[in-house]
């Protein structure tokens, strides 16, 4: 970014006070850096309707100051940035660290056209409209914002997306489904992998485990939404044309992908989308690896895998089956520029117990599952089957055996049931289908001469050693015989290191790669997937394929093997829940499993979601990360300005003096529960009323938010949160009386029939022309009632009943009904500046405002020489006072700079 690192003055905050200080210092010839935490300068004033006592429109006063600040030759503005720390230097100057949050939109390219905003699929409450209406996650803050540039709000990565090992934008496709954009949802998954339908069924869905809704009534059915979009896609179109580039484009290279499991297919797909010519070489007669030859069809139908593979062939990837590769070097000679080895873990682990290799009836589970998928399923009628192992493959094996007619299926595993590697729900389903589990048993030996007749079990006392390594210990005294006629061993699998010894030097059990680049020791050969990591989930394998594709593409195009940008940090689920005001409806989404007590076929168990269920499920999404990464904005932006890889930047600047103009916070009206704010929709704050009255108002008229009715009886409750020991703020907020008097007059102008009543303690119209303004409100017909309001209750029709003290009429408690109640909320300190300096350096008053240590002589001077406070950062002030006070701060900053011989640039 084009800014310097040395300034005469640093102004923190760009509300009306900060802008005034910056402009005056700039006019005096000093170089000024303004740092604003919001995405636009202007602070709170720009959001007001009109301003008292002149009734000028706030925009008309603010916008020229905003424009002047942005264009002043001596003033540099950094929005969406925060000063994190300021350090005093011995020479009287300061060193400040500025943290600039990423906008995810390149401001140099953005033209402010709003197309991203219109394309965005996420809506959140609009903080610039008092949260009365929604805005999108991609947005331009408000119509008069400076700069008029879009940004994308990202609180972090949504847990579902963050926890997806494949790197699929789970939140993104959920929000697209919510919007009814099913094809776009499908295409979004295709940005990561072609295996949409496969993952929609066979993925273990860590997304759902991490879904914030899990802690409420149950997760959003994220995986099944993916199945939904894949099913719809399959019905609507075959294959896809959603590629970035066509294979064979200029500069395209030839790539061989060895292996067609999830890693190989994903890598091939992504490389093809980059424009490379890709051949997938598969040793088996069918493509798909474990997806096609491992996972049983009741979990993952063959047609689903085939539909996913059709994505690749439609994109020009050529898949050659029955094509084993022996010599990697030869592939290079055949003209491939790069090779990706993703051959997975086809080699079954062995028990190492005598008889395993020789006895009839002892098989590896991998071969068993593969035979089923190749149409060579053994007949297990009447057989007593023992499956050895406690992982997901063991479950698949056991349940497949049942489906092949086995009379009895036992599962034997070392672990106790809660510690089994298989998912608990899978174990439960297997048991429900009739599998009998024998946990905490190891295999001591086989019984039988030629054919297996039983398993000799011994009690396993522990599986892992102190370091957490696999080192089972047994109680050899506790033994048991388990009669059986078939044994299927599913205790693990490994890479085929024998086939590619060059990739596994020094007897390594997996292929060895540089973990950052996926390069193998062989030039031009990369490896990824289970063959590198060991057996993992499909999603992890896809993630490997995605990463290796990125590296291979970089390598082929002569770029450094970097740039694989990880996600933003995961959002804190507690923060997500805390920012929700209320939760409407919600039901858990049941899995709709079609169970049979005695399964007899390989039909798919899980039912699909109807469109209605899918939409309802997607609507439950809490938009944890705010932006869903659906990438609709990327497609919509005509300037190619969206950049999700933007990250925060930190800048160190040297400045001669500092003006703290960080403003105030509004009192949170929820802290007065007797007034019902947040519960009664027709109780609004003064800020919300400003928005209802503003020229850029959300509804283009004044109406009450509860039901859109035009209010006829409007009450103001003064001193909400001010002059109130019960909320810890004994101070008067100074401007609420005046803004309420202003609103009274504007409301009566907008709604000539409305009755406006002000419940007050004292009307504090102290200032030039202010009491005259009070008289004007009285003359226009505002009804002033002295006495505090003790409570508000809501009637069924949304009207509100106020209980108040009626001092003018004898001081009795009284009640009155209103259509709309406005709480005249006041000021609380912005505690932001507390962390700016070393603890104790910058003094604060007992309430938390920046202390003016010599107010009578040098208003704006703080406890630190060279640091000045402007406007409401040091206490409640109205706009004219803030402007004068900011001018005073600027005068003293200038004096300090002169004294320190910081000659104006």
């Amino acid at each position: 970014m084009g800014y310097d690192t040395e300034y005469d003055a640093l102004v923190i905050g760009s509300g009306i006070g900060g802008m005034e200080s910056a402009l005056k210092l700039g006019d005096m010839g000093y170089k000024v850096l303004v740092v604003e935490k919001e995405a636009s300068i202007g602070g709170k004033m720009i959001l007001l309707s009109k301003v008292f006592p002149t009734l000028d429109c706030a925009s008309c006063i603010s916008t020229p100051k905003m424009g002047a600040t942005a264009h002043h030759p001596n003033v540099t503005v950094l929005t969406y940035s925060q000063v994190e720390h300021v350090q005093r230097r011995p020479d009287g100057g300061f060193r400040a660290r500025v943290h600039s949050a990423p906008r995810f939109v390149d401001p140099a390219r953005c033209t402010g056209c709003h197309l991203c905003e219109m394309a965005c699929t996420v809506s959140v409450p609009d903080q610039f409209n008092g949260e009365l209406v929604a805005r999108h996650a991609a947005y331009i803050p408000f119509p008069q914002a400076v700069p008029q540039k879009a940004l994308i709000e990202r609180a972090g990565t949504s847990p579902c997306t963050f926890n997806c090992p494949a790197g699929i934008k789970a939140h993104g496709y959920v929000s697209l489904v919510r919007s009814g954009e099913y094809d776009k949802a499908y295409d979004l998954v295709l940005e990561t992998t072609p295996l949409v339908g496969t993952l929609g069924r066979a993925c273990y869905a860590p997304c759902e485990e991490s879904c914030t809704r899990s802690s409420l009534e149950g997760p959003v059915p994220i995986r099944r939404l993916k199945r939904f979009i894949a099913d719809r896609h399959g019905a609507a179109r075959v294959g896809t044309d959603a590629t970035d580039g066509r294979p064979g484009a200029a500069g395209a290279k030839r790539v061989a992908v060895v292996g067609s499991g999830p890693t190989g297919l994903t890598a091939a797909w992504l490389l093809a989308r980059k424009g490379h010519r890709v051949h997938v070489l598969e040793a088996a007669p069918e493509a798909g690896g474990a997806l096609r030859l491992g996972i049983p069809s009741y979990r993952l139908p063959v047609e689903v895998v085939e539909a996913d593979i059709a994505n690749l062939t439609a994109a020009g990837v050529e898949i050659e089956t029955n094509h084993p590769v022996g010599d990697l070097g030869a592939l290079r000679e055949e003209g491939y520029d790069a090779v990706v080895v993703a051959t997975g873990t086809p080699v079954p682990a062995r028990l190492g117990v005598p008889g395993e290799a020789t006895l009839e009836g002892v098989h590896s589970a991998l071969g068993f599952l593969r035979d089923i998928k190749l149409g060579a399923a053994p007949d297990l009628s009447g057989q007593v089957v023992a499956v050895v192992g406690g992982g997901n493959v063991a479950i698949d094996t056991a349940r497949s055996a049942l489906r092949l007619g086995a009379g009895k299926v036992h599962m034997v595993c070392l672990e106790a049931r809660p510690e089994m590697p298989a998912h608990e729900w899978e174990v439960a389903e297997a048991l429900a289908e009739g599998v009998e589990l024998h946990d905490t048993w190891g295999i001591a030996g086989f019984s039988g001469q030629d054919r297996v007749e039983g398993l000799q079990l011994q009690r396993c006392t522990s599986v892992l050693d102190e370091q957490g390594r696999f080192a089972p210990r047994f109680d050899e005294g506790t033994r048991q015989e388990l009669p059986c006629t078939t044994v299927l061993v599913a205790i693990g699998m490994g890479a085929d290191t024998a086939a590619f010894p060059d990739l596994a030097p020094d007897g390594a059990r997996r292929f060895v790669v540089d973990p950052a680049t996926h390069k193998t020791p062989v030039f031009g050969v990369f490896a990824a997937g289970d063959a590198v990591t060991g057996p993992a989930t499909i999603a992890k394998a896809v993630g490997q394929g995605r990463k290796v594709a990125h590296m291979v593409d970089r390598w082929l195009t002569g770029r450094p093997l970097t740039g694989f940008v990880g996600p933003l940090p995961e959002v804190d689920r507690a923060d997500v829940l805390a920012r929700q005001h209320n939760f409407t409806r919600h039901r858990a989404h049941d899995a709709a499993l079609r169970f049979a007590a005695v399964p007899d076929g390989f039909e798919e168990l899980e039912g699909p979601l109807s469109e209605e269920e899918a939409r309802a499920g997607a609507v439950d999404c809490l938009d944890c990360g705010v932006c869903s990464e659906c990438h609709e904005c990327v497609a919509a932006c005509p300037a190619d300005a969206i950049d999700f890889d933007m990250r925060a930047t930190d800048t160190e600047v040297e400045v001669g003096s500092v003006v703290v103009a960080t403003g105030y916070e509004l009192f949170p009206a929820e802290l007065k529960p007797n007034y019902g704010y947040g519960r009664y929709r027709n109780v609004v704050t003064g800020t919300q009323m400003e928005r209802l009255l503003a020229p850029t108002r959300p509804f283009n008229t004044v109406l009450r938010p509860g039901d859109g009715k035009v209010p006829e009886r409007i009450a103001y409750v003064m001193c909400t949160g001010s002059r109130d020991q019960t909320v810890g703020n004994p101070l008067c907020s100074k401007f609420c009386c005046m803004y309420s008097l202003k609103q009274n007059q504007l409301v009566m102008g907008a709604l000539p029939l409305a009755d406006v009543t002000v419940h007050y303690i004292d009307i504090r119209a102290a200032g030039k022309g202010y009491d005259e303004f009070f008289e004007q409100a009285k003359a226009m017909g505002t009804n002033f009632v002295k006495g505090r309001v003790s409570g508000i209750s809501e009637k069924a029709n949304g009207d509100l009943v106020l209980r108040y003290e009626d001092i003018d009429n004898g001081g009795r408690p009284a009640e009155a009904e209103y259509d709309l109640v406005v709480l005249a909320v006041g000021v609380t300190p912005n505690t932001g500046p507390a962390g700016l300096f070393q603890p104790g350096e910058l003094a604060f008053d007992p309430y938390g405002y920046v202390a003016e240590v010599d107010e009578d002589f040098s208003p704006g001077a703080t406890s630190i020489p060279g640091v000045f406070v402007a406007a409401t950062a040091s206490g409640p002030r109205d706009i004219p006072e803030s402007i004068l006070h900011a001018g005073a701060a600027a005068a003293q900053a200038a004096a300090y700079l002169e004294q320190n011989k910081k000659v104006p640039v």
Partner: protein
Amino acid sequence: MSGRRIGVYVCHCGGNISDYVDVDAVVAAAREDPDVVVARDAMFTCSDLTQSEIISDIGEHGLDGLVVASCSPKLHTFTFREMAKRAGLNPYEYTQVNIREQCSWTHTDDHEGATRKAISLVRAGIANTKGSAPLQPTQVTTTQRALVVGGGVTGMRAAIGLADTGLEVVLVESQDELGGWVGTFGPMFPHGTVGKDLVARLREDIGRRPSITVLTRGRVTSRAGTYGNYQVGVDADGAHHDFEVGQVVVATGFSAYEPGPGEHGYGAPGVLTLVQFQELLDRTEGRLAYQGRSVESLAYIYCVGSRGPEHAYCSRYCCSAAVHASLRVADVAPTARQYHLYRDMRTYGRNEEMFTESRRRGSLYMKFADDDPPVVETGTDSLTVRLHDLLSAGEELALPVDLVVLVTGMVPRQQDDLVGVLKLPVGQDGFFNEIHPKLRPVETVVDGVNICGACQGPKTSAESIASGLAAVTQVAAVLKRGTADLDPQVATVLAEQCTGCGDCTSACPFGAISLFGSGNGAKAVARVDAAGCKGCGACVPACPVDAIDLAGYTDHQVRGMIDALAMEVAR
């Protein structure tokens, strides 16, 4: 067709204009003019977004003239001139048309009529731009010295602030010495700072700054010159001084309200103004006594001289000052009964702490109705205050008290001579007026004359000093640049037409026109000092032969505007 390429921008001003004026119709009418190349509407023309659009239009369409139809030129003339400059267009090729203050806001009851009027005004604005010419401002070097009028705390602090930015300062005080009101004060709210001590500190700081010249017993007698370079005359201590200054700061403060005889018993023994009571407290050591008698009870009557028919405004500081005084009473006479008779307690902001503290320490507060003020009965040896207290269900109370304190406010200082010399704008309330409380809070409509402190309206000491320092930034912002641009919209003489009659020289209120070149048979010709001319136009109609024109407001332009206004609006 004039061959000009003009852009017209019609503003909605949120709804301020478009709620009453059919903006689309105005845009359509503007498009009818063959010289109008672009005509558009905008939600906020002054917004940065629309400004950028106009700038790109200027480049894209090669515009050589602009018309912005929005609000009063008082608000945004500078905004759009700056925008024009950024776009490389001469800022005087732009005309501001006021369709808000002069149209939508004045005709809220007649939308059609307002639209017709807006169309006429915009057509006139287009005509004005058609006749415009690029004008170049005269750049002058500014004098690096400021005159501060008034040696109270505001003027003193402003003088120090100005000196600290590197400017020379002439500080003129009418009294024998610096200090003003605060120099007579004891402890002030809210920090208890003693006024006399504060002034002593200010005096000391001034003494350490050789760039500040202090003149006491002084008054400003004359002011002449042009923006950034004024000649001021000051009589001080019987001597006359002339100074060249770049800017003037007026900080002449206020007068205290003096109640009329009998007003709430004023004049009777024991009825004091707030200032008199504060002096009594300052003098008090140990026992609180008035004329030798202990004070055991007092009544404060608020808003005396404020918020009434004579002075409609609120004096802002008096509530807090009276509460502060009552806290001082509580210190010296803890058992004294203190009654506060008020209308609205305006202890705003942090001053609320004092209000709470005073109640904690026993002060009693009673509220009287605006139209039912308390009555002070003055007996020979006693004072009784009667009121209807709204906080006690309107009950009539009679309070026998030893002292009545009339909580009196601030009134404008009478200083007609200074107002005359500097032509200071006086508001309805009698205080000096700034141009705009938010946009230009210390400047006045008089070039180079700034105001601050309580001469602008009631303020506390600290608030006054803050505004004095704000004036420092304004003055320094103008002068530290070293140069100033003078408005080029000045009178020009067509020498060949001028008869040298001299009527214009007597018409000019600024003495900026003189006759040159007589003798040698040549005729005398009027000549305008561009730096001295304010562009007021008084000379133009005075010329019997139409030999004077005002740049930016030429006869040609005005005739064009009249013709345009006379065009019928078909609807």
